[in-house]
């Protein structure tokens, strides 16, 4: 009897093998959408089912949400890229053979991320995450322009170092678990480690967490480990930017949080809170300032992703049920909103034929609908109501102020600085007299509207089931 959690991984991998062989990009794109839909269905099946704890797979209140988001965004991105890639071929940026390769890689990447999410084994999770990273490296270089190659190369080197450090951290976790769980597989199994966290070796746990923080933090995009992120977002195909910001960062953060749970379970270990708070604040404020100097619209939103990852890490660093809840909510909201924004950016780039902010103006005159959606999405990511990001930022700032009034000034400062920059760019792009070309946009606007609606719904009403999951996870995070 095959189970949903196997499907979530197996469908994409199988599809990847098939798609390599499928000729014709239209067929490939359609197949890609169908497969992603199937994966999404499997994800929903998981959501409907009860939690699973197997030797290799785990589905609990913590990762179920991310599996759901992952499969959903995978599906919407496939939908988007189906309409987007066609344009890339017409403009000759991609050749059909590359598109075939692209579809296969896309599925492989989704599969690896799902693998990392449902793995009940720190080794398997590591493998999944690193596979996903390496595949995205290839995807970033897909256009084979000098800039693309350079971005891919940068990403590749930094990511590989991160991979190694993360692996060393994994080994250390195993060593730390050894005294409690003995040798062999148990000391690498999440569920068992979680249960035995109190009996793990605190000193090695500290060491391990540092290496994992640096290793996986590189993929989360925490400053100063972020260098690969803006270029990778800017130079890769837009669907990949959406997946990078929306999913890969989340998966890396998910891994990091799992390990934080272990550390939180061992009172003797050092409290990772302060370190995370500091790194989060550094990323948040640094990215906020970097937003002002951006000239490429995709790089702009890449930095905004760094900013929000910083805020999330800050929230988890603060800890406590409310802050953790807010952090989880913000993760979910950010991945939906940011991928939606990248969809919109893809439309804009096709409409204006450029990614340079200076050459995009007056969208509200030439493309009113697109402008409205884009504006709403950007305002949503800025934490404006009635969108879900507002709820999470509300919780983060209020609880922080209630506990550490002076500390609360820093994230607020960072958010305001970032808001100033994003608003400036938003007004510059959608208002004013239009300049340059204004092509019709073929790409389907369903995905971005869908994401926006989800974020809107979350801002107004959070389903109790989701709340229950988040609260349980927030407890575990300590």
């Amino acid at each position, binding site marked *: 009897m095959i189970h949903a959690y196997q499907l979530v991984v197996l469908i994409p991998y199988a599809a990847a093998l098939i798609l390599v062989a499928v000729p014709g990009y239209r067929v490939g794109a359609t197949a890609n959408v169908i497969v992603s839909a199937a994966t999404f269905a499997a994800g929903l099946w998981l959501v409907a089912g009860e939690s699973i704890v197997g030797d290799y797979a785990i589905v609990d209140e913590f990762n179920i949400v991310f599996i759901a988001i992952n499969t959903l965004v995978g599906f919407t991105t496939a939908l988007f890229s189906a309409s987007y890639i066609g344009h890339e071929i017409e403009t000759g940026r991609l050749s059909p053979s590359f598109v075939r390769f692209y579809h296969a890689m896309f599925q492989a990447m989704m599969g690896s991320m799902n693998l990392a999410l449902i793995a009940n084994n720190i080794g398997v999770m590591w493998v999944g995450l690193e596979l996903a990273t390496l595949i995205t490296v290839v995807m970033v270089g897909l256009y084979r322009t000098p800039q693309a190659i350079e971005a891919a190369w940068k990403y590749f080197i930094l990511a590989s170092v991160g991979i190694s450090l993360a692996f060393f951290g994994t080994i250390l976790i195993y060593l730390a678990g050894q005294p409690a769980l003995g040798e062999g597989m148990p000391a690498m199994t999440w569920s068992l480690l979680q249960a035995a966290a109190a009996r793990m070796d605190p000193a090695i746990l500290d060491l391990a967490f540092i290496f994992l923080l640096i290793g996986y933090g590189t993929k989360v995009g925490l400053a100063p480990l972020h260098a690969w992120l*803006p270029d990778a977002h800017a130079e890769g195909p837009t669907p990949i930017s959406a997946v990078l910001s929306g999913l890969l960062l989340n998966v890396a953060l998910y891994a990091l949080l799992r390990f934080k749970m272990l550390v939180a379970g061992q009172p003797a270990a050092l409290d990772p809170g302060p370190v995370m708070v500091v790194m989060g604040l550094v990323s948040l404020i640094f990215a906020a300032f970097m937003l002002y100097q951006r000239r490429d619209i995709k790089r702009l939103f890449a930095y905004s992703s760094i900013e929000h990852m910083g805020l999330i890490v800050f929230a988890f660093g603060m800890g406590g049920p409310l802050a953790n809840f807010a952090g989880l909510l913000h993760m979910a909201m950010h991945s939906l909103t940011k991928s939606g924004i990248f969809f919109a950016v893809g439309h804009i780039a096709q409409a204006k034929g450029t990614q340079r902010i200076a050459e995009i103006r007056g969208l509200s005159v030439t493309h009113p609908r697109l402008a409205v959606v884009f504006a709403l999405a950007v305002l949503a990511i800025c934490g404006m109501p009635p969108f879900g990001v507002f709820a999470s930022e509300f919780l983060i700032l209020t609880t922080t102020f209630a506990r550490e009034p002076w500390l609360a000034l820093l994230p607020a400062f960072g958010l305001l600085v970032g808001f100033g920059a994003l608003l400036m760019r938003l007004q510059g792009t959608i208002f004013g007299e239009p300049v340059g070309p204004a092509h019709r946009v073929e790409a389907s606007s369903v995905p971005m509207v869908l994401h926006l609606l989800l974020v809107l719904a979350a801002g107004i009403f959070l389903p109790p089931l989701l709340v229950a999951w988040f609260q349980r996870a927030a407890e575990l995070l300590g």
Partner: protein
Amino acid sequence: MPGLYVSGVALGALAIGAAMASLVRGPALAFVYPLSALAAVVLGVVDLQVLLSGSEAAIRLPIGLPTIGFHLRLDTLSAFFGIVINGGVVAASLYGMGFDRAKELTPRVEPLFPLFAAAMNLVLIADDAYAFLFSWELMSLASWALVVARHTDPECRRAAHLYLVMAAIGTVALLFAFGGLAGPAGGYAFDTVRAHRPQPMVAALVLTAALVGCGSKGGLIPLHAWLPLAHPAAPSHVSALMSGVMTKVAIYGFVRIAFDLLGPPDWWWALPPIVLGAMTAVLGLLYAVLDRDLKRVLAYSTIENIGVIFVALGLALAFSANAQHEAAAVAMAAALLHVLNHSWFKSLLFLGAGAILHATGRRDLDGLGGLIRRMPRTAAFFLVGALAISALPPLNGFVSEWLLFQAVIAAPALPQAALHFASPAIGAMLALAAALAAACFVRVYGTAFLGRPRSAEAAGAHDVPLAQQAAMGGLAFLCILGGLMGSVLAAALAPVLHKLVGGALPGPGSGPTPFSLIAFDPARSIYDAPVIALFVAIASLTTLIVVHRLSERRTRRGPAWDCGFPDPSPATQYTASSFAQPLRRVYGAAAFAARETVVMPPPGDIRPARFSVVVVDHLWRVFYAAPGQAVLGLSECLNVLQFLTIRRYLVLMFVTLVILLSIAAVTT
């Protein structure tokens, strides 16, 4: 309870109206303003009923924050502010009906107008922190979109950007305020907050945050700079809403936090609002007197009025901290009545400015003049508004001003030395503000409506459509009525006053006539507007009759005498700038380092003499220009991190790792 449902329906109607308006285009949009007017009337009636009957209603919707929910409550305070707001909305919608759809950029305005109105109403009935800030921010967002409606004008874009950033700063401050009130456990519902009052230290922080949050929305100096840019940038009826009404929502927020949620006040809470308010009042008017743009002058005078209101609120805090409840009632009544009055005459003036803009296409005072003949009705209504905002009896502006002066005069009785030494200074500053207001609006009216037209547009002006005249006329009527019936309004406020400061003004009947407004007790201070008005009316009528009996009735029209040198050119009139000159000489030098330079060519030289004035806005330089440059400069410096080599990025990574490892090595 039914009240809440009815207003819920009205709000829903507004929201649906906004949604529909965003879909349709063209003449179909005409439905927006009638709908908004209708909804606002319904809401206002409900509020009035609640205020008079004192029947509060609360409800908790299962949306919003998980486990907290979305609390709504309609109590007398919200009801009072609801009346203020919906009055403004009705007037603005009425004015909007008169728009010429072809000319105005309706698709960018009309979908947002009802949303804006709904958001403001929602702020008032919000009963938990999330609901409050949710609707507060929605309000800012809607008004931002309205400000940037004329998006091709770079000034509008700049104003909108500054506005929303300042609004965000304010919202963050309010987030902090509510965070402090809710505590680490996250009791966001206002009832929970009332149940556990914060510690004194926390209360201080909360008060500061609230002052920043509400002050930035209301235009309290030094958080004011966005206001004179953003309010004029919007279409005039929206300017009327923003200036006349939205600033009152800010006042509501401060009252709600400082008088309701924060618990019994300490005496020193009074100092920040009083000091800032007094500064705001005076500086706001100095700005206004020196400015030449009609709508910006009005915006600056809004800043002044907000300052006055904050002074009154501060006095109310001081009195109630010392358990002087009737004095607190006087101050609070002054604040609330000024909120109401200002919403009336400021909306009236902005609508008038809109009428001028519509008729002449100009906002610069030095290009107007003589409109009293071309647009007689507008001129009459505007005159009422100008006299009312100058706090002249028997109009409504003076009622609240009078009460405020009574409160100031009572302030020396306060035990705290700081307060009773401040009181005369405050009184003097308020008097100065009042006199400056008179000067400012004599200047505005004299240059815009009186004299001779200074431009072809002004000469060819025509009065506005009937709907817009009706909107202005209604407000003007309210200004007069409110001036005469001030005591009635004060009596209607009694429940709110009891709720906030535990006291009220002596009711009608305790004075010589039913309409005499009484502070403290009849032996101490009375102001009886109807009697005075009656006296003035009788006196002027008798004078009229007598003079016409006695005197030579012949009247001849002739050229102006002007000391025998009449010059036909309108350029010889006093302009707004020349009118401001004495005030600039007296006050500008200190406040704005204003300097006049005259370049006089030598005799025989035919070149004209040049006169120039330099005015420096220190506040802008210190609080806005400098931080902005700091942020940009810092971003420039940090930007090198975008251009490092891969090896250097690896160095960053390595250093981070080593630092963390060393920390782990040293800590035990």
